[in-house]
């Protein structure tokens, strides 16, 4: 008996020893296209850096896209073939998969130091990564604010530059309407409200919300509230502008198509822009297009911009070794003094850690600094409201109905009813 116990004990010790010595582990990482994290040459370099420090952890990467990525993760969850690490925003990691109990608690990564550092950037980031019952399902790497952009050349030709404040990059709702009319009268397509799917819907949401400073959800994130007077007023304004040709609506395209139309000079503005989009589309701007990022127009001139937060989560695959390796990977990529800023640099967005400072100064992405202007306008990260996926599907359908001439108040009521019904 004693002998057996001794054997067991020694086996146990050997096992735990090898675990400390970092057993060779293979883990998988799935990334949504967050800036350069969609390119294998960028990610491979990060992995190479990681393997210098942790040669025993092998990471295989799989690149998702926004078109079918959600479906693939859903299928993987149902099939039990989820990756170990996934890179995306809190609306998926926390609200969707985290709430469904598919993710691991990342308290280990959220040290006091990290919390303080990220909190210094914006408390909204910390709360976004936390589930309503206080569990961290996401460890963030980078953030940005979603903006819109205009073609300065067209605005000049239509004499519409006077409607915007080039210094602060803001404009009021009235100025926006006047600018659109001027563009229309000069023969341009001012802007296209895309609603063919959920792609890039943060742009259409921010547009509709800001026009009359509506709130998308209540502050507690327990109900969708675009049926407020301000919300309906904003959507009605959009409907009227489409009717008079000061904007166009297109239920056949999503943000990607709309951005292409901005880049080739078809539309004078794009509602889906940010530092990443600027980077991706740098080469495709036509000669008669000069992109000039702007905040969304707002009645009081103080916009509330939609944030983008991206980071990592770990799927609960019931394998401790893999989970441990995954934590090591995330810690290295996000927190390492040298690697951290590099990882953020690859995304073209901004670090969530205040201590990283300005990572673009003196690099060839120096023009990213232009987007730093918008960071103070970061609004509530309402994407973490429960029922988010249903809401997204309802949103573009709502826009389609409104622009097909539906009664705004009645259609919004349907949208709110369906969206709120999905809140758990």
């Amino acid at each position, binding site marked *: 008996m004693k002998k057996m116990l001794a054997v067991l004990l020694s086996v146990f010790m050997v096992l735990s020893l090898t675990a400390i010595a970092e057993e060779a582990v293979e883990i998988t990482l799935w990334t949504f*296209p967050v800036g350069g994290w*969609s390119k*294998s040459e960028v990610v491979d370099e990060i992995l190479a850096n990681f393997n210098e420090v942790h040669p025993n952890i092998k990471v295989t990467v*799989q*690149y998702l*896209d*926004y*078109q*079918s990525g959600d*479906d*693939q993760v859903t*299928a*993987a969850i*149902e*099939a*039990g*073939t989820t990756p170990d690490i996934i890179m995306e925003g809190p609306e998926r990691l926390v609200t969707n998969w985290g709430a469904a109990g598919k993710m691991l608690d990342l308290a280990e990564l959220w040290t006091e130091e990290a919390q303080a550092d990220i909190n210094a950037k914006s408390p909204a980031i910390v709360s976004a990564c936390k589930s309503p019952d206080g569990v961290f399902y996401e460890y963030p790497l980078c953030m940005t604010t979603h903006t819109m952009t205009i073609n300065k050349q067209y605005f000049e030709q239509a004499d519409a530059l006077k409607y915007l404040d080039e210094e602060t990059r803001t404009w009021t709702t009235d100025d926006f309407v006047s600018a659109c009319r001027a563009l229309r009268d000069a023969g341009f397509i001012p802007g296209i409200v895309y609603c063919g799917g959920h*792609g*890039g819907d943060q742009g259409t949401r921010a547009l509709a919300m800001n026009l009359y400073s509506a709130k998308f959800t209540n502050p507690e994130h327990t109900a969708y509230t675009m049926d407020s007077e301000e919300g309906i007023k904003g959507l009605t304004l959009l409907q009227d502008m489409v009717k008079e040709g000061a904007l166009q609506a297109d239920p056949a395209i*999503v*943000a*990607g*198509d709309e*951005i*292409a*139309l901005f*880049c*080739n000079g*078809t539309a004078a503005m794009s509602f*889906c822009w940010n530092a*990443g*989009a600027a980077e*991706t*589309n740098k*080469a*495709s701007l*036509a000669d008669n297009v000069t992109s000039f990022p702007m905040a969304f127009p707002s009645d009081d001139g103080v916009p509330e911009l939609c944030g983008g937060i991206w980071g990592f989560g770990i799927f609960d695959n019931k394998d401790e070794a893999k989970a441990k390796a995954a934590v090591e990977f995330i810690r290295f990529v996000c927190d390492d003094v040298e690697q951290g800023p590099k990882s953020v640099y690859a995304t073209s967005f901004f670090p969530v850690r205040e201590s990283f400072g300005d990572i673009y100064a003196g690099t060839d992405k120096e023009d990213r600094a232009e987007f730093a202007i918008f960071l103070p306008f970061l609004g509530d990260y309402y994407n973490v409201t429960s029922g988010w996926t249903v809401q997204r599907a309802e949103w573009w359908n709502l826009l389609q109905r409104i622009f097909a001439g539906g009664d705004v108040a009645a259609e919004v009521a349907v949208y709110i009813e369906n969206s709120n019904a999905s809140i758990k």
Partner: protein
Amino acid sequence: MQKTMQKKPSAKGVEKVTPYKVISVIILLLLSAFFIFTLYWIITGSFKDRQSVIAAKPEWFPSNPVLDNYHSLFEKPALRWLYNTVLICGATMLLTCVSASMGGYAIAKKKFAGRNLIFTIFICAMALPKQVILIPLLKQMSFLKLHNTIWAVILPNVGWPFGVFLMKQFSENIPDEMLEAARIDGAGETRTFLEIILPMIKPGIGALAIFTFITAWNDYFMQLIMLNDTNTLTISLGIAKLQAELSTDFGLIMAGAAVGSVPIIIVFLIFQRYFTRGITMGAVKG
């Protein structure tokens, strides 16, 4: 076209040129142009640069042909996708042909109990879209640890009863006397099947092979649900995934479409005689 009209009667010497014929052939040629055009548009589009792909005035021919699209396409494992697709289609085809020719023969010639019931169920299930059972299939594949392998796409396709139905129609044409003769000669079941039945239903197998291959090739849906690893993707999925969120680049997508379709079109053109003969011998006689 004029030539076609004049040659035709002389070739087979039966019918006269009527205005109806002339108009019909004109319409036919216009439609042909239309059918060829999509392929033309894919191929020329794949050589257009990012500006001219989205130019408001489309270029009929790329004025400034570039290879950029192919460069960015082959940064992704596009050839691997093509290989996976061929593997999936080939395996589906093989398994279906084997199981369906045996099953079809049994239903046509073996008077076993429950034969009519089985055949009726097969008929009812034949036109079922796979979307109907996608959720249980997903669960099942994960239970069998086959999710995210090409078998998850192959097996449900093999299970589809259309093949058995088709092969039953063929086997029915085999005269009973031949089977009787084989039995008198003392041939066993296996030999009868391999030496008498198989040669007789060969054209049918050809038809089924082609049909299955093409169905599997176009089976985007099952691939979308079952495969998600960059290395198990098929070319159809690959093309669909080229539509990114923050930029839609039709030039790149066309390059993907070209890589996905041109190889099979070339194979088709080389073998089109056998191809069409296979299909037709399959279904025409009943």
